[in-house]
């Protein structure tokens, strides 16, 4: 690896690390259900980026496969969570005294 790639790699890792931490902050902060789902979806995306970067770093295509699988599979959890929130919404509509929105699924 040349110095250019080396530096770019380091910078990229730093940026991805920061992205992970910031995305996670949103996951925790919420405040509503969709916010957390967006955050997790994006964290998976950053994971994909990390896998691709690692593939580039090591030259092992196995990590590219990882990125590929993640790209396909992470979608499933997002779908499931979205369905979950929809169901929460439907249930709230039936509830006489729904809980506060940031505790909508309690």
């Amino acid at each position, binding site marked *: 690896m040349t110095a250019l790639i080396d530096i770019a790699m380091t910078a990229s890792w730093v940026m991805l690390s920061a992205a992970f931490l910031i995305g996670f902050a949103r996951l925790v902060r919420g405040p509503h259900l969709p916010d957390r789902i967006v955050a997790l979806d994006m964290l998976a995306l950053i994971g994909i980026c990390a896998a691709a970067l690692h593939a580039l770093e*090591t030259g*092992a295509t*196995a*990590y590219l496969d990882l990125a590929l699988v993640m790209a396909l599979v992470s979608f499933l959890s997002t779908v499931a969570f979205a369905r979950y929130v929809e169901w929460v919404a439907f249930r709230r509509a039936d509830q006489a005294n729904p809980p506060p929105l940031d505790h909508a699924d309690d």
Partner: protein
Amino acid sequence: MEPALAILVGILVAVAVWLMLSRNFVRLLLGFAMLGNGVNLSIFVAGRLSREAPPLVVEGEVVLGAAAANALPQALVLTAIVIGFGLLSFALVLAWKAHERLGTVRTDEMRVAEPERTP
């Protein structure tokens, strides 16, 4: 980095134990999922870590490079992950059905098999 991961494993296990002490069965199962993560990671760490290369024999070579990661713990963890998944998914379905049949997911309210009255 092994020691750092060892401490992470400890944190995962602590959290898992905390969750498993809950009276809420679903929380307990979240704890088990967490415990599974911790334990799998611990096996991985116990087999020592390598950043250099995955245990894939490079095309044209016969023997894995010396710096490549130890493959055995990876195989073990892979088996353990899948097994843990089997157990957890069964348990989750059980939680669902337990709620349906017993009307609660709180284990301290589940008193059918061991009723309050009989010692």
